[in-house]
């Protein structure tokens, strides 16, 4: 694991408040007027040249949202959000109609370059051909969709994916080009009435990714979306919809960063996954939104609804998340195990430092027969942060033979942070078998002394112990992401000891 060494070196160079992605890009942007109204919704819909049915769908959601109240049950605290004081749409002002990567504002391309997101296909090719340990070189390519504030600015490898029959494009384009698919699946996993933030998203979402993998197709490359909030006072409401048709397979990666700002920014995304018979979706997230500074000022509110529907028999959905950023994280990537023999997985690393608050976990809803699920959650709390795992596992009356295994491990660094585990388990039939294991541990002085006696600095020692603690989950990530995630983990724990 050469990355460990790399990690500890990076940590040594970085200060607590140096969020690596905290730069801002100065570009002209095209914004909706501040505040939320039917006009705002119509403005967004018009900007996207949407058909009438889409506008109607949004307005319905908006009207529903007006009747809803913000939920309060999570173990998080934040001042009241003024929804009229936000911009709901911000797009980099295009110099002209964009038809190829060459025409995208070079400032934006530079931003993605700084983030290490290779947008140009040549760079993608060069960037990810790597030697896998001492084995023969493995060629891996990733198609990238980059979303800047509200708009998707570039999607790579489109042509090649098209040949395989895979549709991968900004959702705004999919609404225009594949209305039959969007109409059929949008809101079918997370209905417009689902919850306060999801309903808000349904009304004002501006972009996101759309993926459709046709029957029997194994997507020839990893798909990836990179989200970036740049504009001040903007909410980012992206919407992702992934459909894996019968017998297909797709692996999808999502990365997120934002500039460093004193005010809080709202991010309320919705992700819907649909897996039909014998299909498999693997969804990985490395979330590194700006977490706020060392006094707890600023940072992203990450209030996200992610849900997968194992609609067909023998289908499988696997969520892997590495959460290191955001001032507040409030999300539960979940699986509805509807098809018989379907399987849901949730692998999570949630790290909180400084004043960060995390309330995250999953829901595994067993509806079909012989459905199985597995939950591995690793929570790491440092500084003055609060880290909660909240999970729900249920078996429907008809879900005979349902099985779940849950392991929640928490690691505390220092004595001013908190780790909490809130598992809910409901079995409505007697053949369901649910197992739950939970541990809470502290990085002990003895372990730190042992490591420092062998020549590691305190920071290196913490990095090593934590990377060992999360290893089971890191192994679930695609290799490129695993290395990046490992670095992030150590960086986000910088300053947590001594």
């Amino acid at each position, binding site marked *: *694991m*050469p990355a*460990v*060494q790399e990690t*500890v070196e990076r940590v040594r160079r970085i200060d607590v408040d140096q969020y690596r992605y905290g730069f801002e890009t100065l570009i002209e942007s095209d914004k909706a007027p501040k505040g939320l109204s039917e006009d705002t919704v119509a403005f967004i819909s018009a900007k996207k040249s949407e058909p009438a049915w889409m506008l109607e769908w949004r307005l319905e959601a908006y009207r529903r949202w007006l009747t809803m109240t913000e939920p309060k049950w999570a173990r998080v605290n934040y001042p009241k959000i003024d929804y009229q004081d936000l911009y709901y749409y911000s797009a980099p002002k295009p110099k002209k109609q964009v038809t190829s990567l060459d025409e995208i504002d070079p400032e934006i391309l530079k931003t993605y370059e700084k983030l290490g997101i290779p947008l140009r296909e040549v760079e993608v090719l060069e960037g990810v051909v790597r030697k896998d340990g001492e084995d023969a070189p493995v060629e891996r390519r990733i198609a990238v969709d980059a979303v800047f504030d509200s708009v998707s600015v570039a999607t790579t490898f489109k042509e090649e994916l098209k040949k395989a029959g895979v549709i991968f494009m900004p959702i705004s384009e999919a609404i225009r080009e594949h209305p039959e698919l969007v109409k059929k699946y949008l809101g079918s996993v997370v209905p417009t009435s689902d919850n306060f933030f999801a309903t808000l998203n349904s009304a004002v979402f501006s972009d996101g990714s759309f993926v459709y993998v046709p029957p029997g197709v194994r997507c020839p490359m990893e798909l990836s979306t990179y989200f970036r909030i740049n504009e001040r006072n903007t909410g980012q409401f992206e919407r992702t919809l992934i459909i894996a048709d019968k017998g297909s397979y797709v692996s999808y990666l999502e990365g997120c960063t934002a500039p460093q700002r004193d005010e809080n920014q709202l991010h309320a995304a919705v992700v819907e996954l649909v897996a039909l018979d014998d299909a498999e979706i693997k969804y990985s997230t490395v979330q590194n939104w700006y977490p706020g500074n060392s006094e707890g000022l600023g940072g992203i509110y990450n209030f996200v609804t992610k849900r997968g529907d194992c609609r067909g028999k023998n289908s499988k959905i696997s969520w892997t998340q590495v959460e290191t950023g955001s001032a507040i994280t409030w999300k539960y990537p979940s699986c509805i195990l509807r098809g018989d023999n379907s399987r849901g997985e949730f692998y999570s690393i949630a790290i909180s430092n400084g004043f960060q608050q995390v309330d995250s976990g999953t829901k595994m809803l067993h509806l079909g027969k012989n459905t199985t699920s597995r939950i591995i959650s690793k929570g790491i709390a440092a500084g003055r942060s609060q880290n909660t795992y909240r999970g729900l596992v249920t078996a429907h009356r008809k879900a005979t033979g349902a099985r779940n295994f849950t392991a929640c491990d928490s690691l505390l660094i220092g004595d001013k942070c908190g780790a909490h585990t809130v598992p809910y388990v409901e079995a409505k039939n007697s053949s369901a078998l649910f197992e739950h294991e939970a541990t809470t541990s502290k990085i*002990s*002085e*003895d*372990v730190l*002394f*042992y*490591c*420092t*006696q*062998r*020549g*590691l*600095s*305190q920071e*290196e020692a913490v990095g*090593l*112990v934590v*990377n*060992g*603690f*999360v*290893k*089971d989950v890191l192994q679930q990530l695609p290799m490129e992401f695993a290395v990046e995630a490992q670095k992030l983990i150590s960086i986000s724990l910088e300053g947590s000891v001594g």
Partner: protein
Amino acid sequence: MPLLEVKDLTVRVEDNEILHGLSLTVNKGEVHAIMGPNGSGKSTLSHVIAGKPDYEVTGGEILFNGEDLLEMDPDERAAKGVFLAFQYPVEIPGVATMTFLRTALNAQRKARGESELLTPAFLKKAYEVADRLNVPRDMLKRGVNVGFSGGEKKRNEILQMALFEPSLCILDEMDSGLDIDALRVAADGVNALRSPDRAMVVITHYQRLLNYVVPDFVHVMSKGRVVKSGGKELALELEASGYTQFEDAA
């Protein structure tokens, strides 16, 4: 210049003074045994030399190659060549022993201004040392000390000692929890590391270990002081008469 000079050291933990003016001089090539009853301060001495936090040094000094050791962090001391083989080595789940060894060795090399060992060179060296000490290579792939038997943990300590090539090895109760066969294996490993450039301080409660690792000097500690020093025959004398006489002397 002596390798290690402990001069009139007094140490407290919270409100209790554990060491009251302890002195010890160790030269390169020598093996010193420190014996004494439980609670006499043997382990405290080893921890303070290695730099464990929570101990307050209220008087005296520790010089290592003439440098003030008390001014250094534990990792700096390690890089200078101080090695402590722990009585109870900790477990680090999820971190492969090989990864740990490589990270630690390279951290030490870097601190000394030496170049880092790249993976192939490191693997060669690690396997060479493991083979020499009869440590199965498979053990290097397991998590650090996770699920190791008492004997395996001690062998892992000796393996690290051999790999890091320190100039001062402190062995804290390395015989505790070992049966006679495991003790012999561990002692063979230690004896193989005896060298004119290296000194060893062997801390033990029982004389038994000293049949295998034969010391040049024996010091008896009682109540935070060295109360008697002598050659290896002193250990045998202790075995016969016990510690009681020294407790009275202290």
